[in-house]
């Protein structure tokens, strides 16, 4: 890392006047139930922000000069005021990138989206074939995503994005994902799987193996700036001399944060848990007050202890990895990343297995219907 870049990173760690990268999950409602959903989405939360409240937040973001927001969910297009909020945001000079599974993008909607400026669309896809994708995202979701991409292409939307969460089962498809994106004139985005939301339960089966981590690192180095990563793979930098493109730092509460569907503000999209809740846009002072004055964010902007990793020569490269990944597998925040490429994660997870792992909060998973022996259908909540 160049001297200028590391100097900049040091300054970014102390926080910005407003976030650069703000994620706003508009709703917990979703037509799908992906096994790794970071927000455990499914059912709408009755406390969801109203249209007027959402517009007031956009007014605030305008005043803070937030250039663009990442909208997600749940499936954001489920909200009846989705287009209204989209148009309002763009009219206030806040560009929008939204993530969708594509189920609500038909030919008409695709044309409407294609006519808008300052809009990016990210279609989620976790396999280049239906079997691989649907195992994670649910039956029919591959066809749904491809259909949406066809509509966007036919409508002349231009360069949309295909967003992939890298798992043990699709890591060998990275070249195919790239070819698929190229065939649509789309841009590929690959991000790291975290044990957040329902991922807390599926992560152990889905996360890439150690050998696959090197495969990802080398693939990303070979593809450089042409593939987006949300800077999410910085823990892999300990694998070699050459850092991956990007800032390679944890931006939680410093340059990044999350607003959830009911207006709660968290340090990042992967830590929906009270420990990382900074406040609510509904509190007096709104979002700006939370960003500028929350105790949690002030703490995150302090120099962080390298803790157990202090004596490791790779700490400068990997920064101890991802806070969210550690938290939900029970590793202390100053411990190693569970996917530490130096192999320190396994021991730390083993040590943590004696204690209760924190459970993700705000579970909006759809209830599971179970038939009892008497064949009376009852409904139980999913943990």
């Amino acid at each position, binding site marked *: 890392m160049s001297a200028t870049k590391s*100097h*900049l990173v040091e300054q970014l760690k102390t926080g*910005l*006047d*407003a976030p*650069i990268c703000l994620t706003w999950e508009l709703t917990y409602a979703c037509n799908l139930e992906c096994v790794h959903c970071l927000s455990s989405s499914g059912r709408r939360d009755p406390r969801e922000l109203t249209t007027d409240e959402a517009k007031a937040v956009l007014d605030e973001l305008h005043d803070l*000069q937030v*250039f663009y927001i990442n909208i997600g969910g749940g499936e954001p297009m489920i909200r009846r005021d989705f287009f209204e909020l989209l148009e309002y945001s763009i009219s206030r000079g806040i*560009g929008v990138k939204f993530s969708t599974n594509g189920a609500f993008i038909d030919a008409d909607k695709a044309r409407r989206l294609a006519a808008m400026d300052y809009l990016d669309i990210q279609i989620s896809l976790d396999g280049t074939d239906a079997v691989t994708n649907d195992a994670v995202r649910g039956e029919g979701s591959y066809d749904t995503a491809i259909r949406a991409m066809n509509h966007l292409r036919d409508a002349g939307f231009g360069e949309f994005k295909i967003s992939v969460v890298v798992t043990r089962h699709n890591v060998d498809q990275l070249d195919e994902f790239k070819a698929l994106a190229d065939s649509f004139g789309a841009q590929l985005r690959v991000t790291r799987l975290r044990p957040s939301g329902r991922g807390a339960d599926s992560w152990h089966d889905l996360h890439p193996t150690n050998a696959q981590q090197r495969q990802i690192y080398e693939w990303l180095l070979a593809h450089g700036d042409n593939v987006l990563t949300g800077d999410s793979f910085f823990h892999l930098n300990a694998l070699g001399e050459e850092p991956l493109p990007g800032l390679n730092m944890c931006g939680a509460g410093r340059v990044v944060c999350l607003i959830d569907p009911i207006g709660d503000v968290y340090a990042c999209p992967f830590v929906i848990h009270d420990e990382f809740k900074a406040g609510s846009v509904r509190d007096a002072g709104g979002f700006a007050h939370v960003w500028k004055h929350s105790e949690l964010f002030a703490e995150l902007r302090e120099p962080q202890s390298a803790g157990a990793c202090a004596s490791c020569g790779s700490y400068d490269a990997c920064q101890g990895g991802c806070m969210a990944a550690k938290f939900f597998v029970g590793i202390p925040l100053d411990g190693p990343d569970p996917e530490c490429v130096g192999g320190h994660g396994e021991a730390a997870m083993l040590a943590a297995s004696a204690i209760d792992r924190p459970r993700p909060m705000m579970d909006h998973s759809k209830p599971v219907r179970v038939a009892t022996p008497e064949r009376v259908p009852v409904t139980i909540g999913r943990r």
Partner: protein
Amino acid sequence: MRRLLTPTPVSLLDHHLELDQQVALRPEPFGALAYHYGNRKLIFLKHPDVVRVVQALADHDTLADTLRACDIDPARWPSFERALASLTESEMLHERHEVAPR
């Protein structure tokens, strides 16, 4: 797609530059963030002086004139030239066609 900077003829110092209309600057403790609404690029201006120079470009004929007007020590001009070359590469700045009135 990363594009190579077209070879700078002689020096950027003689160029008539201005901030693209689609670029917004947000002041930050380290300098400013520049965001290009057209190509979605986000660039860090890592020194308040660079921000001052960029904001003053439109009021002066050439980059050299701007640096002089902003009281930038000539010893620092090469580093400003490099910073502005990179902003030109990312289309944050572009060549002005009409020259500002003197």
